[in-house]
């Protein structure tokens, strides 16, 4: 083995001047800058208006979620995942529950899978709408943001009637869902999904896609070639914008995604404009998936019948001994994971949200690692920003569509 690198000095994160008295200036962008969508700090070294070097500084929102997961166990960890990618909390909930189910070897009933598909796609629409709205606002078009939030408000209302919470939903459980769809919910969501593509065309695409200013600000800005995107491990629309056709819903289907008809939009150049187009198209494809899932919604249970992982029905708990014991064990301990390890990734709005879970036979994961797409997507910044103008950094950051709650975990 070669010698280990020296321990970092206390002030190692300070960016040293690369050329003394070269007339270059340093600019601290963030931690609290409107375009950083959270608390991201980037130290920019500038030559005039051009970025020469960029040094991202993250960790302002680090809460130690992996440690929390090890301590609390699967069920109690679900609410924490709401606080990761807080633009699509339901997608994170679904991801962590499904990863735990993969570890436990549980196969969900079809109705639970179909409801999870609807929820995950609603989360994707919600996240992409905010991503696009904030993108447009950062580049100077405020109107789109307001239209996007009108649609997101509807999704919040759906979440409220489905889960009881508008924002931090904590809806699925390991082995099923906490409740079934309320009456009339499916029809309301289907109407929303049917009208959504036309509204996206009218309110987002007509304002932006062929807008001269928008094109001038975005085309050729922040170009990520295919090889670089793969090497940096980008996922989600950022990878597909660079021309890599890789969507887990298509390539490694779960929840029965293979039975739905949808297309995976792929960019050609890999610039900010391609990433914008990918997101717009993904909203429409998600609406398509929701319509199909609701049309074919199977009937049946929404959780595995096995009392060892999922709470038994309340009326049985009150009348039968075995269910009472199961209820007690699940509430006090939680569902038990076997000895073993898995890696499972969910196609989250921002990219692949991967869970590497090591089980040790108890109700708490021995190790739960979250591969956050925003974290990996941001690691390209030191490569991507140099050469860009300061005003372009705002467009590039917005086009990567990251969330710091997920990046720092």
């Amino acid at each position: 083995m070669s010698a280990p690198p020296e321990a970092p000095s206390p002030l190692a994160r300070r960016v040293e001047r690369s050329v003394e008295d070269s007339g270059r200036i340093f600019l601290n962008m963030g931690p609290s800058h409107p375009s950083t969508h959270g608390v991201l700090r980037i130290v920019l070294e500038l030559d005039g208006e051009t970025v020469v070097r960029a040094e991202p500084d993250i960790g302002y929102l680090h809460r130690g979620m992996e440690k929390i997961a090890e301590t609390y166990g699967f069920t109690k960890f679900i609410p924490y995942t709401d606080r990761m990618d807080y633009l699509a909390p339901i997608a994170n909930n679904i991801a962590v529950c499904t990863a735990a189910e993969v570890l436990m070897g549980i196969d969900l009933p079809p109705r639970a899978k179909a409801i999870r598909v609807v929820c995950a796609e609603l989360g994707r629409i919600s996240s992409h709408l905010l991503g696009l709205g904030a993108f447009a606002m950062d580049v100077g078009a405020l109107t789109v943001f307001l239209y996007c939030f009108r649609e997101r408000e509807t999704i919040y209302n759906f979440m409220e009637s489905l889960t009881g919470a508008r924002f931090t939903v904590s809806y699925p459980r390991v082995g099923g869902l906490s409740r079934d769809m309320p009456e009339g919910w499916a029809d309301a969501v289907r109407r929303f999904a049917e009208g959504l593509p036309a509204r996206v065309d009218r309110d987002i695409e007509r304002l932006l896609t062929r807008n001269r200013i928008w094109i001038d600000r975005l085309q050729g800005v922040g170009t990520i070639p295919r090889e670089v995107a793969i090497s940096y491990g980008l996922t989600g629309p950022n990878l597909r914008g660079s021309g890599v056709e890789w969507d887990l819903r298509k390539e490694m289907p779960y929840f029965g995604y293979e039975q739905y008809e949808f297309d995976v939009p792929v960019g050609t150049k890999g610039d900010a404009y391609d990433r914008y187009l990918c997101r717009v198209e993904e909203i429409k494809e998600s609406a398509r998936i929701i319509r199909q899932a609701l049309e074919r919604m199977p009937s049946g249970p929404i959780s595995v019948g096995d009392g060892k992982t999922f709470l038994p029905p309340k009326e049985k708990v009150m009348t039968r001994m075995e269910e009472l014991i199961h209820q007690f064990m699940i509430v006090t301990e939680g569902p038990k994971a076997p000895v073993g390890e898995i890696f499972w990734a969910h196609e989250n709005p921002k990219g692949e949200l991967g869970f590497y879970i090591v089980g040790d036979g108890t109700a708490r994961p021995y190790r739960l690692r979250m591969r956050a797409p925003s974290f990996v997507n941001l690691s390209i910044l030191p490569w991507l920003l140099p050469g860009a103008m300061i005003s372009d950094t705002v467009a590039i950051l917005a086009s990567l569509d990251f969330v710091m709650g997920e990046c720092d975990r």
Partner: protein
Amino acid sequence: MEAFPDAGIEAREFRGQWWIDVPRERVLDVLRLLKEDPDLGFVFLNDVTCTDHPEEEPRFRVVWVLTSFSRKERFRVRTRCPEEDPVVPSATPLWAGADWLEREAFDMFGVKFAGHPDLRRILMPEDFDAFPLRKEFPMEGTRSDRQWAKWVLERARRTEEGRP
């Protein structure tokens, strides 16, 4: 999974997912083979992470998660390193994305990646004095709120003095 260079390396499976345990001297060769062999094509590095097993020897286990676009499969490469010499080779020569992932593993566990261009803390404060995801680190932290506030203020003052 087949076609590994030496017979000593054995592929294992759980829930349909495969991985191999490799001695740390061979990790880079195995990763390179997995990435560059056209039949395997594991060109995508999903994750680099670490697990801590204080009661076992060697203590740390480092895991690389790879994806093959052509085979539509995932594969994991695992290796171990002891507490006294927590060094494993870095995958940065193969994937640029390994940079931040390895920095996070170093930040949380103190495992060093030989050959990493810039190995320093990424999420925790740069002068933090422990590795929080090690099993002995308590959930509630090592400092009270008051001690934290004091520590942060001292740090700010020190940084202020060191400003050029």
